[in-house]
């Protein structure tokens, strides 16, 4: 099978083209020696199946950034038949160097000039034929966004492969990668002879938007307002959908599953329904929010606003060892930590990405918010409720700050902050949909296994031995609660709350329900019982611990898969547990010492 590598600079529409060419067949490939996910897909090329590999976006082949290293390693170790180079027509004057670098490697290549429409609007005309002659590489203008020229580009690729039947060995390429320097001059010559630039580039719309959105004083408030509105949209639109899913799963359970499984032994029935089914529906209830989140995110990401938010926040973030983009991810974490962690992929430097990923689980996500609203309503009068909730958000910010300050030296990033500011673009609905769908698929395949196993384990812990009342202190979970008592007593968390914390480890969504199971009560009776059992100091300590100790199994799984390091996952877990305990301890003992 022929192998084609897709290569280009960041912000050239490379992923859009990949999605367009690969359709739904893309999957994450496993390449020896390469630590990042490379997507690949089987495509039809000149009547044969070929493998298309999407390499990370890069500025040149010199190999100083992580992404550049990945591409060099790939080209030097895996045989390829063709390189599809994709460049931005509107910036061809500086991007052509990449094509020349590839040509210097001697690999058959086809050059695709993307964003034809954008270049036209800017008044740039490119003589593709003349450029092809000068370069000695087939050149074709396309619009990956709208699909123009894509079938022709594939034909061109198939022809080029036929004309070069002998593969260039990876060893040859590896050798040539070592000596790739004298390209500048030739680039200037070709540009001068083949490209006509208007005297003044048409930046006007982007410029006018930037004047407002990047205003020294208005820029930040406007940005925060847009983020707030996006969250508002995600949750306003997502909550009814989530409720709808919950309703659907409840009805499916009572109408179909419970009657169907009634004849099974009680333990198997409980395991299947309360264990597996609960786990599955917990994951599924996440889906509408995740879908919306990624639809909105891919829109924001492709629009060019993210780089501008980075510009606005960079000064403050730099003091924490992070950069502007990290701030955007943290804000996302207030919705849900999982997609925020995935979003850190935009960072090129690994230490900075890890430091950002370490802070994200401390963002007060919507699932934790649900627990807090429940507890606050029980333990605090309405006049204090808003203040208590606000203070929890402040604690969330403070823990992020403390974490970044403490770990910034360990994850010191030497990467300079030089970022391209692309013009504003409006992604097509199809583009948004394809991007969002890829992410959702990724999330589901991973989260399903993890949450289902976790839920089954918690069910077993709270139902064994069979002689004990479910979720009572006599169960294994109760024993674990007693085992942790020496640690949890000093922070005011009793056995019942400790069991809820075990549930909360799987997903915070289960905490409220688990309290109902633990006390065997519902509604007002449950509230009265909890209010009778714990005072506000204990409740606050419980909330602080819940806020910090660990987000949920999905987040932990995502931490591991995104960092590709179990060690990092354990570090994050251990750090948040330790921080949670220390803060709860200080609060609980401090409040008690003050006589509360």
């Amino acid at each position: 099978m022929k192998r084609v590598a897709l290569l280009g600079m960041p912000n050239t529409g490379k992923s859009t083209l990949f999605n367009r060419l690969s359709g739904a067949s893309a999957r994450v490939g496993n390449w020896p020696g390469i630590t990042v996910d490379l997507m690949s897909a089987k495509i039809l090329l000149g009547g044969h199946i070929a493998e298309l590999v999407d390499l990370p976006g890069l500025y040149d082949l010199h190999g100083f950034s992580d992404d550049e290293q990945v591409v060099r390693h790939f080209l030097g170790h895996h045989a390829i038949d063709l390189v599809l180079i994709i460049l931005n027509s509107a910036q061809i004057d500086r991007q052509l160097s990449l094509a020349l670098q590839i040509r210097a490697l001697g690999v058959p290549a086809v050059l695709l000039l993307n964003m034809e429409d954008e270049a036209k609007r800017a008044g740039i005309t490119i003589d593709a034929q003349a450029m092809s002659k000068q370069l000695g590489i087939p050149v074709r203008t396309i619009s990956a966004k709208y699909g123009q020229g894509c079938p022709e580009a594939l034909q061109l690729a198939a022809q080029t492969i036929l004309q070069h039947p002998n593969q260039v060995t990876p060893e040859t390429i590896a050798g040539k990668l070592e000596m790739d320097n004298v390209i500048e001059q030739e680039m200037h010559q070709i540009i001068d002879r083949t490209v006509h630039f208007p005297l003044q580039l048409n930046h006007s719309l982007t410029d006018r938007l930037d004047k407002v959105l990047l205003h020294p004083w208005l820029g930040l408030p406007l940005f925060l307002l847009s983020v707030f509105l996006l969250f508002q949209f995600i949750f306003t639109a997502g909550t009814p959908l989530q409720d709808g899913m919950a309703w659907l799963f409840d009805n499916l359970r009572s109408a179909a599953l419970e009657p169907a499984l009634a004849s099974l032994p009680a333990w198997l029935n409980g395991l299947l329904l309360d264990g597996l089914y609960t786990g599955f529906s917990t994951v599924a209830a996440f889906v509408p929010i995740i879908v919306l989140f990624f639809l909105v995110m891919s829109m924001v990401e492709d629009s060019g606003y993210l780089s501008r938010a980075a510009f606005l926040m960079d000064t403050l973030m730099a003091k924490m060892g992070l950069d502007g983009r990290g701030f955007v991810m943290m804000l996302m974490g207030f919705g849900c930590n999982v997609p925020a962690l995935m979003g850190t992929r935009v960072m090129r430097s690994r230490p900075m990405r890890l430091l950002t990923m370490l802070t994200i689980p401390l963002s007060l996500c919507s699932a934790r918010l649900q627990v807090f609203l429940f507890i606050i309503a029980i333990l605090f009068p309405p006049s204090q409720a808003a203040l208590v909730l606000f203070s929890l958000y402040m604690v969330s910010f403070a823990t992020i700050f403390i974490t970044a300050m403490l770990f910034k030296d360990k994850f010191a990033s030497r990467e300079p902050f030089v970022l391209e500011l692309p013009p504003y673009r409006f992604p097509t609905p199809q583009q948004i949909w394809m991007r969002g769908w890829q992410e959702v698929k990724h999330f589901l395949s991973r989260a399903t296994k993890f949450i289902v196993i976790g839920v089954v384990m918690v069910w077993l812990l709270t139902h064994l031995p069979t002689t004990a009342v479910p979720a009572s202190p006599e169960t294994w979970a109760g024993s674990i609660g007693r085992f942790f008592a020496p640690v949890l007593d000093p922070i005011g968390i009793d056995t019942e709350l400790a069991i809820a914390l075990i549930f909360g480890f799987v997903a915070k969504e289960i905490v409220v329900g688990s309290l109902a199971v633990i006390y065997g009560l519902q509604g007002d009776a449950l509230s009265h019982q909890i209010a009778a059992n714990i005072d506000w100091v204990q409740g606050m300590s419980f909330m602080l611990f819940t806020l910090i100790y660990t987000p949920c199994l999905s987040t932990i799984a995502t931490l591991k898969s995104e960092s590709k390091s179990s060690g990092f996952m354990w570090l994050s877990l251990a750090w948040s547990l330790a921080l949670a305990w220390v803060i709860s301890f200080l609060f609980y003992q401090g409040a008690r010492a003050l006589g509360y």
Partner: protein
Amino acid sequence: MHLDALKPGQAAIIDRIHAEQALTQRLHALGFRTGKQLEVIRQAAFNGPLHVRIGSTDVIIRLQDAKAIHLHPLPNQTESIPA
């Protein structure tokens, strides 16, 4: 004069780039080359990064990294740029 001294609205010519290799390469790839003209469009609040335009490309760069770029004034409007 270095890029970090240029004020919003001012333009100058790149004299040379003096940075460690990785940053030099990155700047080259973004279009920063000796003899090219650049313009500072704006600066973020609290002494934040610069928004620089070079050719058809807009770039944001921290002041610290902007120090690496040595400039000389435009030939025809020397008086508008402090040395």
